[in-house]
């Protein structure tokens, strides 16, 4: 899918960025480097500081400390209108009194591009997002998805050094969101622009980004490729926030954790021995109904949640509930009430020690 050869963006560096609102620290020394033409998604719960980081890059807010460097130039002190940055907002932001092409041409007009050139580039950019035929429509005559595509065209028309996307899909319904998500990625790769994408939707972040940064309390908890963030979470928070996690009591011994008789490798093996809680992904749990139905991993199915292609089965292990995720076709064998034996796939797991009352203890 990626066309690295077409990438021509610039490197963007966020260096030790700090931002406080009164007593609240929104950003606490955030450092992050986006490679040229890379799409990095900042993921995190509300209030974690991801939008603040994006707004500092855009120049819509002033940093209390740190630097923003775009293409080797320190832009920290520059106002928003002097930075060559394109931004798509969460709220619909098309100028209501202008038609689509006028919206797209607005930034070009600010750059004193001639009328004919403005129109040509506006329509070309609208064509890029598949909306050239709607160039004469007002925002009220466009659907939410179309409005966000025009907003994307408007941000790209000025040929910015960086594209900033502030939860641009959150106001859209699921189907449009998924389609537009792919559209954004296609356009980003085609244009080759360095992009910072902010979202609280982990599926969105994992699907679209070259790298995902998970944030909490104004700090970056983990930054890495989506597969790494998902399969090897650096902290319990990341494990919790990116996908569902089972918390099973176990014991660390010899760089492994033993959970109900099963030994699992550790994401971070250098931890002292002792009791701990293992964080196990639902998809690493499988069910069997044959063989010996005895032991610490035998339980009863109490619920099956249909999710479409996959289903989530909740199993009661005598006071401890464990989630297992599997293809829907397989769940027909385990209706509620069935006695099952769990198998844990030996994927590397993260452990947590601070929990005082872990499940399964």
């Amino acid at each position, binding site marked *: 899918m990626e066309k690295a050869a077409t990438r021509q963006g610039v490197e963007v560096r966020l260096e030790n960025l700090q931002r406080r609102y009164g007593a609240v620290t929104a950003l606490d020394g955030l450092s992050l480097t986006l490679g040229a033409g890379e799409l990095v998604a900042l993921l995190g719960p509300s209030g974690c500081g991801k939008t603040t980081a994006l707004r500092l890059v855009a120049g*819509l807010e002033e940093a209390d400390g740190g630097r923003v460097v775009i293409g080797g130039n320190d832009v920290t002190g520059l106002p928003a*209108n002097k*930075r060559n940055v394109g931004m798509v907002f969460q709220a*619909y*932001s098309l100028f209501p009194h202008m038609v689509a092409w006028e919206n797209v041409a607005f930034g070009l007009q600010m750059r004193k591009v001639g009328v004919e050139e403005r129109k*040509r580039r506006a*329509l070309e950019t609208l064509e890029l997002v598949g909306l*050239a035929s709607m160039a004469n429509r007002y925002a009220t005559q466009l659907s939410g998805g179309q409005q966000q595509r025009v907003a994307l065209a408007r*941000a790209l028309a000025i040929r910015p050094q960086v594209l900033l996307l502030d939860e641009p899909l959150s106001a859209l319904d699921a189907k449009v969101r998924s389609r537009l998500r792919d559209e954004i990625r296609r356009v980003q790769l085609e244009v080759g622009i360095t992009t910072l994408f902010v979202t609280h939707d982990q599926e969105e972040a994992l699907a679209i980004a070259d790298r995902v940064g998970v944030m909490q309390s104004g700090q970056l908890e983990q930054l890495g490729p989506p597969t790494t963030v998902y399969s090897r979470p650096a902290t319990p928070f990341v494990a919790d926030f990116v996908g569902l996690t089972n918390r099973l009591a176990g014991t660390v011994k010899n760089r492994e954790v033993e959970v109900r008789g099963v030994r699992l490798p550790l994401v971070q093996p250098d931890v002292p021995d002792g009791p701990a809680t293992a964080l196990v992904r639902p998809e690493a749990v499988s069910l069997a109904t044959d063989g010996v139905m005895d032991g610490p991993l035998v339980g009863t199915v109490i619920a099956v949640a249909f999710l479409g292609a996959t289903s989530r089965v909740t199993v009661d292990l005598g006071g401890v509930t464990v989630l297992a995720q599997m293809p829907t076709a397989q769940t027909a064998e385990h209706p509620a009430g069935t006695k099952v034996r769990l198998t844990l796939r030996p994927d590397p797991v993260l452990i947590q020690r601070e929990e005082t009352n872990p499940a399964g203890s």
Partner: protein
Amino acid sequence: MAAVTASFQRSRRARLQAFRYVVLIAAAIFFLVPLLAMFEFSTRKGLNVGSGFTLTYWRQIFDYPDLVAAITASLQLAAITSIGMLVLLVPTMVWVRLRLPRLTRIVEFICLLPLTIPAIVLVVGFFPMYQWMGINFSDSILTLSFAYVVLVLPYCYRALDAGLGAIDVKTLTEAARSLGASWFTVMWRVIVPNISSAILNAALLSVALVLGEYTIAQNLLYNNLQVEIAQLGRANAGVSIAVAVASLLFAFILLVVLAFVGRRRRQPSETLVQDFARGGRK
């Protein structure tokens, strides 16, 4: 059963329609009868109703130089006050919304304050200021616009607040800024066009208020339209009423213009996309 329900709904609609007409006619009578009476009085030949029609009083308006000067001054005051109010209020309100939302209530309170103070009390406050201005700056009647800007603040604040509340000022501003617009461009090219109806409403309220203002002008010893009408009323009631009707008509015409301008939507260039589709990429 269905036929009975449909018949009941038809009759209900008819009754509602009739009620609307009754209300409309009653309101029209309430507003139009005094106007027509004034017009009749200003076009009456003799002393009694039905004594003939004449436009003498209307023609005489221009025979009174003081009246013409007062009309000119009031129109100038209306224009200056409207512009002054907009220049003062629009950027302030936008700035408060963007940067100082905590001050919203305080600004609102300050703007609404003149509504709670009787005009005569305002005059007492204004008097020393105007005395000083008369000696050190100017004693032109146009200086009344300072007082009038204060006077129209409550009404215009409400009109503009409704307009700004209807758009997402913050997002539109940030979008424009990120596209390279200066603060002036943001105001002039993005905010103002999207609150144009509110601005027109506020301007109309200012004009109507200034054209109808009497107390402040009279007590600060300036002859604006209303003061002149009152003075003329003692000498020539016919001309006085003719001017009053004319000023009301002026306000009415302004309202019609406002409704027309507010509803009109600019048509985009229909040929743009077609040109492009035909290969108009130069």
